């Protein structure tokens, strides 16, 4: 029982032709998933937070809490 001749040339090229487009596509998918799963929600969360943010009110709350040295709480 003698063995048939297998393919012996271009094996790496064949492998790369198959795997590199897949690798490239998966990389793009991973980047897109991170962008739309992580960075965009994060940016949106910041935007939502600051949309209704009243800086003066927050400042006065902090002032009354006594954390500042340059302005004392009102009434002292």
């Amino acid at each position, binding site marked *: 029982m003698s*063995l048939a001749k*297998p393919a012996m040339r*271009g094996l*790496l090229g064949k492998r*790369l032709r198959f795997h590199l487009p897949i690798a490239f596509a998966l990389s793009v998918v991973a980047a897109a998933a991170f962008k739309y799963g992580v960075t965009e929600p994060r940016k949106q969360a910041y935007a939502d937070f600051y949309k209704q943010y009243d800086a003066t009110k927050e400042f006065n709350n902090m002032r009354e809490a006594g954390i500042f040295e340059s302005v004392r709480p009102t009434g002292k």
Partner: protein
Amino acid sequence: MRNWGGSVVHFNWRHTVYGYVQSCYTPLAQRCYSHGGKLESDEEFDARWVTYFNKADIDAWELRKGMNTLIGYDLVPEPKILEAALRACRRLDDLASAMRILEAVKDKSGPHKKIYPYLIQELRPTLDELGISTPEELGMD
């Protein structure tokens, strides 16, 4: 991919499909277009290497250089090339290199497990004539 560093892999960029280049599916393993000449066929490539190793007064450096260059290509050498290389080892009284060549082509096959047994089958007459044991026969695998 272990052979990445040394391999010369050339895609055959023949067809342009949907506006991007898609490689052709007849693999041309290793010939360069760099001289702009006629492409060497597989048979010419094999014949060139058989001639290289068949040089009667080949020296040890040329044997090593030839094998290292050959292993760098994206192919497993044909039995006739390996036979010429093994005979060169015989002329140089170099059994170690002869067995190393067998180990090298086994490694070169990578995940394609059918190649090495086929090569040993084709080389069996030469191995017997020259008295070369395979690493498997000596338990060195």
